[in-house]
């Protein structure tokens, strides 16, 4: 028998693919853009879920990596577009694979010192320190005028991908969708792997992990870095979706939203981020259509979920999470 959660997961994956296909058939590209937004936010949250869901690391600063990914896309494309060489004579690029690679690398390199310092602490300290580091990067972005400062950085055209016309909504959606599935696959592999076993033990009981001879710090740091990289990749896509790298991608509201996505969907679950992102964008779209003050109601809903429905959407639909 297939577990109920597996069926729900499949349904969610199919819905996300079906909506843009149907929308294109009816000539409604807006819904393709909306679905792309879901896929990218879900990807960012899958990244955070590696740290938060598997490792129990409540990073309140993942917007830093989301934003760095976005700025990587923006800065590289701007240099290539204006034919202004950057460091070491590198000319920038408008090729998505290159941008992704650079976004992943930069996020990993930034996550290393942030993680190394933050992970010396735990609990509330960890939450506040990750928040503070993200703010540091946010303030840097808005006070450094070279790349737009407070105004952000516009991309003149969406970056390119070999053989695919990314300017059209549907192909770009499919790229994002494919990367989301890839990241969820990575999440599932990590969760079931030796590293995942150590990481999940670090969340449940780090003394136990240390007592078998595995240093929790190292495991957490690696998880934090992987998590940051995946979220950074999502940031690069987000900048391409909006053709704009905005300082708001680095803001602490963004960090909060990423956590909200995970919790709305269901913490530590493979499809939690996707379920959460679908729900979130659905709220944003439907409530936002009714009232300008939709975040007020989002606040009420979120409060209700935290106080009364702790398993999130998947918790309601599929019951308690199980562990092997």
């Amino acid at each position, binding site marked *: 028998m297939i577990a109920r959660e597996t069926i729900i997961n499949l349904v969610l994956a199919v819905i996300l693919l079906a909506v843009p296909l149907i929308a294109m058939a009816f000539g409604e590209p807006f819904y393709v853009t909306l679905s792309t937004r879901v896929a990218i936010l879900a990807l960012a949250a899958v990244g955070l879920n590696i740290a*938060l869901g598997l490792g129990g690391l*409540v990073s*309140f600063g993942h917007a830093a990596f989301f934003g760095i990914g976005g700025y990587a896309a923006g800065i590289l494309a701007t240099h290539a577009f204006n034919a202004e060489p950057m460091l070491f004579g590198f000319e920038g690029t408008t090729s998505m694979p290159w941008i992704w690679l650079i976004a992943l690398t930069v996020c990993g390199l930034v996550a290393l010192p942030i993680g190394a*310092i933050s992970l*010396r*602490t735990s*609990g*509330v*300290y960890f*939450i*506040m*320190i990750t*928040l*503070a*580091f993200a*703010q*540091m990067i946010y*303030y*840097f972005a*808005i*006070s*450094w*005028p*070279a790349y737009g400062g407070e105004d952000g950085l516009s991309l003149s055209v969406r970056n390119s991908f070999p053989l695919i016309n990314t300017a059209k909504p549907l192909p770009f959606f499919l790229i994002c969708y494919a990367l989301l599935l890839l990241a969820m696959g990575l999440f599932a592999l990590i969760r079931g792997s030796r590293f995942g076993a150590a990481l999940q033990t670090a969340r449940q009981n780090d003394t136990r992990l240390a007592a078998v001879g595995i240093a929790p710090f190292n495991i957490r740091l690696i998880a934090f870095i992987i998590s940051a990289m995946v979220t950074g990749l999502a940031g690069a896509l987000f900048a391409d979706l909006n053709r704009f790298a905005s300082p708001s991608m680095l803001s*602490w509201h963004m960090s*909060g939203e990423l*956590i*909200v996505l995970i*919790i709305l969907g269901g*913490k530590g679950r493979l499809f939690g981020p996707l379920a959460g992102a679908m729900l979130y964008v659905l709220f944003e779209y439907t409530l936002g259509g009714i009232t300008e*003050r939709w*975040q*007020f109601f*989002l*606040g*009420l809903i*979120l*409060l209700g979920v*935290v*106080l009364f429905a*702790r398993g999130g959407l998947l918790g309601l639909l599929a019951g308690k999470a199980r562990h092997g």
Partner: protein
Amino acid sequence: MSTALLIEQLLNGLQLGVMLFLMAAGLTLIFGVMGLINLAHGSLYMIGAFACAVVASATGSFWLGLIASLAAAAAAGAIMEVVVIRRLYDRDHLDQVLATFALILIFSEGSRWIFGSFPLYLDIPPLLQGAVSLPGGGQYQLYRLAIIAVGVAVALGLYLLISRTRLGMRIRAGESDREMIAALGIDIQTLYTIVFALGAALAGLAGALVGALQSVQVGMGEPVLILAFVVIVIGGIGSIKGALIGAILVGLIDTMGRFLLPKTLALILPAAQAGMVGGALASMLIYIVMALILAFRPRGLFAA
């Protein structure tokens, strides 16, 4: 660079520090006693500012506004505690973060609903308008000095409250041993509500005082909240003394960094670049200091 300018900047730093202390004291008290991380503390600051602005413009009296800010923030805090926060004491920090994040959305959008997106303005009361002369020439706003004085008075008052009064004794007991205090027959729920309302009133006071220096608008509490987090992380969460020293440190470092870094860099860089690099560095400075402190003392300077 003149001495007067330097003194002025030092006083500005002190004033920022004092204001941060008003915020951080409540946060750290609430964490120390209830073990709760409250992101919505910045909303209480905003509520204080709005209450002051609205009452002051209706009555023409800043002082009535100030009283209103204390009352409104304390009441909002008490209601918040009874309706929502109380359910979060036994939850993990993640749930606390999320629930209080939800409260921010509710308070911010709610205020925007009521007051609109345009900022309100609050005048400095006539009594405190004007300036005083500084040694070495130059003038300094009397109102800012008054804020510093209020901060010092609050710090002193908190010290006396916690070390000398029955309420303070209970707060200290609550910090060290929650079960003990319940066993002694102290009504812990009421104690928690009082502590929360006290922290809220301090935040509201800070909001009202700063409201007269800046504009009063939705979202004004958030940058301050994050600075207050930096303060209590540096000072050691749960420690009022840490909050005071951390707040002054952050206030001075931030202000002096913005003042001195561009000037210092101008000695080695062209003026335009010095301004840019210096400005960017200054905006990151307190976070860098925080990272350095935590690298050596992961639980802050005065860990409880």
